[in-house]
């Protein structure tokens, strides 16, 4: 297993949902800004050597759907040969992306990766645009629910 080093990091400011500075900004544009900044900061690196771009996103749909990692990579003028994937572990998506990218490098799949995360709750709110539950969990009768504490029903959006 190869040793893995985090070489640099960068982030945007954080704006409030619906009212903040980034409420009109598209999430892929947020990523593009960061990717291009990274390229500028490290202009001696051959960026065509990136093995993977791994981006975490808790609600990967609509404006941050369609594999937002890939969209941003292309919009940032990276060559089309650079692969990208978007992963989801809810709130821990971002940190999971770093772990995933690191594991790829450790196993020798690649030497160099870009990892990160993006979320715009102004564009895609918590739960997404069609917040749904599986009725299977709710084995209640027509008119009542016998459970006094439906723990399994509490919205499992936490970082598990």
């Amino acid at each position: 297993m190869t040793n893995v080093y985090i070489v640099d990091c960068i982030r945007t400011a954080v704006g409030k949902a619906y009212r903040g500075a980034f409420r009109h900004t598209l999430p892929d544009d947020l990523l593009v800004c960061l990717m291009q900044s990274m390229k500028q900061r490290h202009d001696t690196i051959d960026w065509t050597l990136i093995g993977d771009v791994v981006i975490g996103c808790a609600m990967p749909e609509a404006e941050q759907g369609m594999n937002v990692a890939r969209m941003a990579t292309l919009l940032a003028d990276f060559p089309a040969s650079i692969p990208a994937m978007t992963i989801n572990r809810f709130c821990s998506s971002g940190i999971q992306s770093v772990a995933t990218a690191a594991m790829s490098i450790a196993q020798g799949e690649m030497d160099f990766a870009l990892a990160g995360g993006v979320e715009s709750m102004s564009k895609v709110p918590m739960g997404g645009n069609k917040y749904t539950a599986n009725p299977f969990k709710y084995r209640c009768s027509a008119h009542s629910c016998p459970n006094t504490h439906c723990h399994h029903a509490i919205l499992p959006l936490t970082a598990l």
Partner: protein
Amino acid sequence: MIFVRQIAVLGAGVMGSQIAAQIANAGYSVLLFDLPGPAEKPNAITEAAIARLQTLKPPPLAIENLTAAIRACNFQDDLAQLKHCDLIIEVIAEQLELKRDLYQKISPFLHENAIVVSNTSGLSLHALQQYLPVIQQQYFCGMHFFNPPRYLSLVELIPTSTTSSALLDELAHWLTCRLGKNVIRAKDTPNFIANRIGVFSLLSCIHQGLRYHLALDEVDALTGALLLRPKSATYRTLDVVGLDTMQHVVHTLQGIADDPWRDTFQLPEFLQSLIAQGHLGQKTGQGIYRKQGKVIEVYDIQQQSYRPAAASVDPDLFALLSTCSISQCMQELRNMKSPQAQFLLAYWCDLLHYSAYHLQAIAHSVQDVDHAMQWGYGWQEGPFIAWQNMGIERMLDLIKDHSQIALPTWLEEVKRAGFYTHKGAYSPQENTYISEKSILSQKLNHLVKNEEVAEFLSSSSRKNDIPKQLLLTQEQAYDLWALTDKTLVFCFKTKTNVFDNAIIEGLNQALNEAEQTGKGLIIYQYNAETFSGGADLNLLMALIQTSDWQGLDLLLQQFQHILMRIKYSPNPTIVALRGRALGAGCELLLHARGVVAAMESYPGLVETSVGLIPAGGGCKEMALRTARQANGYANFSYLKNCFERILLSKVASSAAEGFAYGYLGGNPSVQTPHWVMHKDDVLRVALTTVDYLFASQMDLPAVQRPFVVAGREGKARLQMQLVNAREGRFINDYQYQMGNALAHILCGGDVDEGTLVDEAWLLRLEREAFVHLAKQAETQALLSKFTKGMK
């Protein structure tokens, strides 16, 4: 007073199912009956007929989802349903024994005021009447529709000698106002009026065509648009009707005893041969015409095979008839010796002679015959008005040369004065001129209080003489009427009612007048087919060709300005719409306070078909309307449909579709209160509301339609919210329980998301939940606490 609430149509054939469709179009629910299908699908035959309605062209239904108003029934299981039916229309096969059996079968199920009518055109109405119970017999008559019953406005109403005349009046009123038909009362003679004259006309064209050795497509070229008739003319009409059907109809007419033209009532050899070979016309894909790939071929009698259809009218004949209608140039026609000209003369002699000979026996007046041909066959001119335009005495000479058959004596008395005078239309039966005001004209007259104006404004026919009374302004481009003390009516007079500078100026003047005198403005057109063809393209082209871009922008501003002025005027503008409203015409609809639309209204934004986009506020209104309809994100799915319709120049095929497209709903920006300011005034407004509903025929009973529910998945979503709300102590435990019960009902119970349910389904769920909650101690405690508190 008859109250037609529930209607049944017996027989789901071509005519029956389309008649049911027109009844559904009128807002009624209707039972459609046919023979029972197999045991596991007893209504299969009727259901197939209803499904087929959605594939016919032109569409019999105003909008596809109207099939929900037609209920499939069969003669075996559903006769008991007839007990609730007020009007029963029999449209089964033209065989006396079959009809006899059916009438006897339904008789026990008719309620005492039930009206039974028959669409028969060949069988004896008197004979059919005898098969009904005695009480029902006075409520029986013939009600003869024309194919297709949505688009051909004629209905012939035929009483027997014992039919109640009050019933006939009520049915005429119902057919006119509720089904949008034009009613003619006919006498009980074979094929009544329209088909009697129409079939003779077809046969005369056939026989005279053969006599003058004209090719079949040549006959069509001469008897369609040239005679101001539909382009299906003669032989294409036969293909559509079906050669075998024609054979059957002609056979029936051969039986008429007192018809000197009996010899005309047979199909020539070549047609009989085609029928024998199974070439029956449109229904078999081949008849007189057939389509080979993209080429239309016509049967050649000489060659006894098909060749490409290519016939045309002789150049000199065409030149003559381009300058004037056929009625105006009969003299010149007589001088032409060509077979085509001679054919036309011979045909006209036949038609006029036949019409005059049989008039007294088949109809009340010349107008009934002329109207029958206009409304049932789509002829622009009926035989008598055409004859009058040709010169009655001049044609009489020709007719006498052409045939030995006698002419009726009344013609001698009438030939100088004419068939139509200012006193009315000639009736040989009354031996005088009668002037009957139509049902609609009488109704309009109640409001307008001027018979001549009411008659003129409630007709579809294009008249050249506009009555002068009540006209406020008469310009070249428009007329402005002060029709009542509360309304002005603006009528375009430009070609196809296009918008040009004069119209824009006129509308500004009309609005000035309305605002100054405190009146409402109605925009209505004399032309029943074309409300407006849009902006004047010649005007646009002139500006474009001279690169006058500033001028073009100015014109657009002026047009946008007048429409915005209409939209925000202190006085309401209502559009009375019928026919095509395209481009700018549709944009006018979008800015009016309201639109009163005939079912046959065809609005559409069609600018892209000439490479432009709506720029009179059409795009703006559609964007605005979708925004008001939707809520934020959901806006896009409405917008997408709007976008496609404008891009593809889609035109609605009925008012129902026009509403669905969002073109007819009136002004959604109107913020005038829908509430009454003074509490003590609500009763008065309620009274005028009931008046308004009856006057505009919005009083029909509602039609049940199934609807979509959110199902199990929807319930799960609501339950998530309940769990969170309880955890957060926003609701207590019992509210949580009631919430679960409520979610179950609102989502339609234990069904898949998107299931279609009816109201009975949800009503049952409501009762079950209510009773369940009533059994709970918590509910009983709450009730008890509440009632104690009240004491």
